[in-house]
């Protein structure tokens, strides 16, 4: 491992979010500013991601070896998308001998909902799982802070209520899964926050916390959250 930055506040971190078709990169520079790069519509993530990361670094006058850590959206999400991100991130982290910090992708949904000051204290982040399902993660608010409740799950949209801990009309839902199945969720009584996708920039803050706490796995053990068996 490279030496820890003198202060976490000066850490340079590159984040990748590839769990959904809205793929993005974010670079946190030593001054705390976050620089972003979003994949253009129509581009292939596997062809766009690596050169875009190189350009993002170069745009700030940085080289890969200047990085202190990487953050990757851990899913759940599209398997191919997750592999595009993880494959690249594991190679980069191994090569640079820096931590690879895995952050659940639904956390970004929660972060954006919180930024928008949503009412209520219950949020379910939903990502499109295809095959007629959604991946979900419950969050609840205590004061100004949001916390995850339980672990991620896969559900048929019309049986989402079985995964909620109180009546559906007490919940807000956001994320690509909420958008795809909006009619079903409205019928169940959920309040929807449309157009929210996981973003790489939202991985930075939790990654800095994990970096400070040393809370990350060795790169060999890093693996996306698949939720589904490989033979389903």
């Amino acid at each position, binding site marked *: 491992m490279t030496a820890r930055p003198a202060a976490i506040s000066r850490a340079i971190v590159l984040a990748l979010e590839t769990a959904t078709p809205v793929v993005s990169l974010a670079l946190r520079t030593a001054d705390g500013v976050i620089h972003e790069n979003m994949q253009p519509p129509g581009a292939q993530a*596997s062809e766009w991601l*690596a050169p875009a990361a190189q350009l993002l670094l170069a745009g700030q006058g940085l080289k890969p070896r200047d990085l202190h850590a990487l953050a990757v959206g851990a899913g759940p999400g599209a398997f191919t998308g997750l592999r*595009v991100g993880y494959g690249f991130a594991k*190679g*980069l982290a191994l090569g640079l001998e820096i931590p690879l910090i895995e952050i659940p992708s639904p956390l970004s949904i929660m972060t954006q909902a919180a930024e928008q000051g949503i009412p209520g204290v219950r949020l379910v982040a939903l990502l499109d799982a295809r095959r007629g399902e959604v991946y979900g993660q419950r969050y609840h608010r205590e004061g100004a802070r949001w916390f995850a409740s339980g672990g991620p799950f896969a559900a048929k949209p019309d049986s989402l209520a079985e995964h909620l801990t109180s009546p559906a009309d007490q919940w807000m839902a956001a994320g690509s899964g909420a958008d795809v199945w909006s009619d079903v969720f409205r019928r169940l009584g959920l309040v929807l926050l449309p157009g929210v996708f996981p973003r790489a920039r939202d991985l930075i803050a939790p990654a800095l916390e994990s970096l400070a706490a040393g809370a990350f796995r060795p790169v060999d053990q890093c*693996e996306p959250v698949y939720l589904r068996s490989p033979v389903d």
Partner: protein
Amino acid sequence: MLVLGIESSCDETAAAVVRDGREILSSVVHSQVREHAAFGGVVPEIAARNHLMWLPPLVREALARAKISHGDLACIAVTRGPGLIGALLTGVQFAKGLSLAWNCPLVGVNHLEGHLAAARLEHPDIEPPFIGLVVSGGHTSLYRAREWGEYDLLGSTRDDAAGEAFDKVAKVCGLGYPGGAVVDRLARQGDPARVKFRRPMPGKDNLEFSFSGLKTAVITRIGEMGGVPAGDELNHLLAGFQDAAAGALVKKTLAAARITGLKTAVVSGGVACNSRLRELMLAGADKSGVRVIFPSPALCADNAAMIAAAGSIAFERGRRDTLSMAAAARLPLEYRPAAGSGLA
């Protein structure tokens, strides 16, 4: 010149370091056969997930065994196709990460060219032109190698790959997966003359293969026998099947040598480990005055040393790929220099 090879096109994860395209400094392979065996074949999603976990430790191990550091590498060669797209994608993305981290050039390699280049690792003197037969669970193709990197496809299978036929016959006989090694072992104890099958020859005037009919003939024969036989009867049946399959491969390979006038043939890929194929090919080649080169079994199966060997050749020829390089499930090997390039 040191090249790191990375292979992840199917169910083997591999990394290797090769010097000057000919000398293996290290070669490590993790076979996923056990993970797939329960399903009777390769499950693409299992393969891709496994590659993601095995690539980092294998690359680290390959560098350690070669006693080199990444700064010594001239380039990173990675299989970009053909193969299972999720499996390929994992290796290609991983190689891009290493390439960016180490500021080391990236070279995408055709897996089929890797199989041909494997011959160079044990026979450093071999140079094109030669006939190349790549025969495995996913491929059965005959090439004329004009130069390294320049290949004409002379013929390929119209249906099943030869290795696929071995796997399917093994499955029908209840011998598990993969089938190549167990069929070979049992067939060696049998007599191919006892249960004969027609050599699959789709036309006399071409260099194409077909193994689907042979597989069906085996299944039909099993039906006529009242079910899968046991003991010697099973051994004879498998010997007959193996003899017909190997015979077809030999006949077309030697025909390719005769038609092109070439006197060297490289036979590689997983099925090139088959003992009957080796026996018949060497006997036939001896009569025809053709030198046949079989890489050793470890280099016939999927490995990264062959990818590093092919990558070395491509790198020396000036090949550099960018970080936008795409993996490709289908990737023809044929290459013809552009007119006016001076190479045509």
